[in-house]
């Protein structure tokens, strides 16, 4: 079915602009411990076992958990300046390549993206041809043709609709409403008298189908009911009954939830979670560590709390311990290489946290 004619009511458009969905890629997945599966619901046994192991233990030592030392926004700024510092070269891309061209690409079944470039030469030539006055009173439009049935030819013009665009724009998202159709776009000027002056014509694209094909191959036919069951299962809704339309809409949901980018398979080596979690209330975190250091004869043997340690070549040593609440008795015993002399020094350290 060709598109109905050039009425503005059945299209919409957005100008190219940022539409970032922050936090999408680095979503934390700490919700829910149970794998959910519709098929499994009907079977007993394994799902039960999963519950048994869900952790119920409480944190026994408050000095163990704590929170991270991390400030998301500062971190992001630091990474940006790091990259600017590491790659100081500033490469400039040409704003124009000196072409008259319009390229369209498919974004999804309902949207196209168009970008273009028009040379001053072409503009001047058109201005000469239609006259300065007409030129100044016309405005640029995109004319979107549905070329599914037949392409644009001298004597036959397929159905189209027009989209008024900004003078300065060089790209546009076009909502074409109908999936599984072929499109071609003209960029031109619409004069006061509604004459269309073509500047440049695009390539042809076809939007994908947004549902199941109606074409059935006789050699590979099965009954409708079995399609339904197979397709329903394919989308992950287990065994059950629903119309093919419902199965299609489930597929739509599935596509939104399952995409690559839902989980950071290549996550940034820096931490960047984005989203709401970044905003935490005022906070303070305090941890303590204890450094034990000393020196003895370089060839002596030194034990700390019964474990041997390695001395540096000059006989010094340094040890670092995370210090939890409570008392630590830390005997350090040095024995001379001939085993004749032995000295033990025992620091006793206590950490007590008052909140």
């Amino acid at each position, binding site marked *: 079915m060709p598109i109905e004619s050039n009425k503005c009511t059945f299209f919409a458009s957005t100008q190219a602009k940022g539409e970032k969905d922050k936090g999408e890629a680095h979503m934390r997945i700490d919700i829910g411990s149970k794998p959910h599966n519709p098929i499994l619901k009907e079977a007993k046994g394994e799902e039960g076992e999963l519950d048994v192991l869900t952790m119920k233990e409480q944190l026994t030592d408050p000095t163990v958990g704590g929170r991270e030392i991390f400030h998301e926004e500062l971190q992001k700024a630091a990474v940006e300046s790091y990259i600017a510092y590491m790659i100081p070269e500033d*490469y400039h891309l040409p704003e124009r390549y000196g072409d008259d061209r319009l390229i369209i690409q498919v974004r999804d079944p309902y949207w196209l993206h168009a970008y273009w470039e028009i040379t001053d030469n072409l503009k001047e030539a058109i201005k000469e041809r239609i006259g300065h006055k007409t030129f100044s009173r016309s405005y640029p439009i995109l004319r979107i043709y549905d070329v599914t049935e037949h392409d644009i030819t001298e004597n036959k013009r397929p159905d189209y609709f027009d989209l008024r665009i900004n003078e300065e724009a060089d790209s546009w998202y076009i909502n074409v409403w109908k999936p599984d159709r072929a499109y071609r776009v003209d960029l031109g000027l619409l004069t006061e008298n509604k004459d269309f002056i073509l500047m440049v014509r695009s390539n042809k694209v076809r939007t994908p189908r947004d549902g199941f094909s109606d074409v059935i191959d006789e050699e590979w036919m099965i009954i409708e009911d079995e399609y339904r069951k197979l397709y329903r299962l394919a989308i992950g809704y287990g065994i059950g009954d629903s119309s093919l339309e419902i199965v299609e809409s489930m597929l739509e949901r599935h596509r939104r939830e399952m995409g690559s*980018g839902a989980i950071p398979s290549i996550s940034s080596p820096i931490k960047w979670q984005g989203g709401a979690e970044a905003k935490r209330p005022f906070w303070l975190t305090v941890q303590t560590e204890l450094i034990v250091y000393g020196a003895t004869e370089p060839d002596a043997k030194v034990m700390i709390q019964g474990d041997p340690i390695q001395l540096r070549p000059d006989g010094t040593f340094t040890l670092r311990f995370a210090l939890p609440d409570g008392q630590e008795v830390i005997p350090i015993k040095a024995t001379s290489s001939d085993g004749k002399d032995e000295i033990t020094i025992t620091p006793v350290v206590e950490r007590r946290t008052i909140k």
Partner: protein
Amino acid sequence: MKEQGYLALVLHAHLPYIRHPEHENFLEESWLYEAITETYIPLIRIFEKLAEEGIEYSITMSLTPPLVAMLTDPLLQERYVRHIEKLIELAAKEVERTKWIPSLHPVALMYQQRFNEARYIFVDKYKKNIVTAFKDLQDAGFLEIITCPATHGYLPLMDICPEAVRAQIKIGVNSYIQNFGKRPRGIWLSECGYHPGHDVFLKESGLRYFFTDTHGILNASPRPKYGVFAPIYCESGVGAFGRDTDSSKQVWSAREGYPGDYDYREFYRDIGFDLEWDYVHPYMNANNIRTFTGIKYYRITGPTTDKEPYIPERAREKAAIHAGNFMFNREKQIEYLNTLMDRKPLIVAPYDAELFGHWWFEGPDWLDFLIRKIYYDQDKIKLITPSQYLELYPKNQVCTPSMSSWGYKGYNEVWLEGSNDWIYRHLHKAAERMVELANTFPNANGTMKRALNQAAREVLLAQSSDWAFIMKTDTVVPYAVKRTKEHISKFNSLYESIKTNNIDEGWLSSIESRDNIFSEIDYKVYSNA
């Protein structure tokens, strides 16, 4: 054959080409190092152990050309050794530091052991080239390694220049032949991005199959009789396999997947962000920024920022249970499918390899348990590769898959939206100019030939889908923007200097050594004359 159906596990291993010889340390190179320690080596370990124990299994794995190029690059290999040695040093300090905290100490010991093992496998066993480990596993019949477009270019948004699509595929195939000593049978299209007609280029390169997301097959025309549970043939004769949703969701889904289990290791709580600056900063790959070290002591715990210590044995036990659960669900699926299908059904379950180990720490254990359980505990399902399935069922329905990807919303939007749409006018122009150059200089020699080959490398590097992806996901955006501009800009300079026959040999040498991917490239792949 008593099995009633098949499961094809597909692991897609990919990282963008990041190599900065001009810097001693470079933050983004850590992507590779982390993936080696946390994903590739653990996978090699389990695959080899299974093989040693005589357990039969078949896994399909794509190793993308940029990843293989990095894994075989001597500079990056040396840097990985330096990286793992520093980690071993840090782990030893951690073992000492956690001595008085009994809940963390065993976890520190676990890391120490794993890092030592990683070093052993990387340095001693495989002489710094772990690609040979995967190659050996393929030669022994356990893995079927497939290729990928040259730089993981997103092909549906390259359709305007078919020569560019063809070049991505041909170079992907050539790089595979060079590394694995035979032709690849299948290809993983970057981001599962399929545009009708591109199968013709696969056919030209001798590829027999590719994968699409679920709706690529379900929305194919004519309507595929078996849905995604059997492959279809494109008109070119190339097979298309569709992703099963249920098996994907259990591993991928943020809401319902296994990796969100409270017992599993928390990815974000890393000592790089938790410990005192003077202590950790020598281990940061970027001098003044906190980064991940890979040492993480906590489990997911629940929807709270106060995390509890990780208990390795408990997590392992959970991985075993989840593997059992996964297998059980596949058995149920197969049983049900058998009531609807007149052939043995196939379930295709593709995942990003880096999900296993890197993001889902217990993922490799899960995979290990799953393979064992499938082998020992049941006889309804069997692991299979797409090639093996095509041998069993060489006759398949002919349909045209629908344009699709596995990106958010299922089409091209992830790579074509407000943050990244500006790149295409440059990418397309560069591709068009590359074709022009290849046609203009059909028999270049010497410096001219080198310049043309380098121009092809720059086009390819600019085309990596990763840059647009990073811009969209808002992580290290400035890096992705710089990389895109850098390669386009270098290409444009090469284009001008080739056209005017005015090539600065010194400059050419410097960018050749910097962007050194595909040493065997032949620019004539872009010719359409």
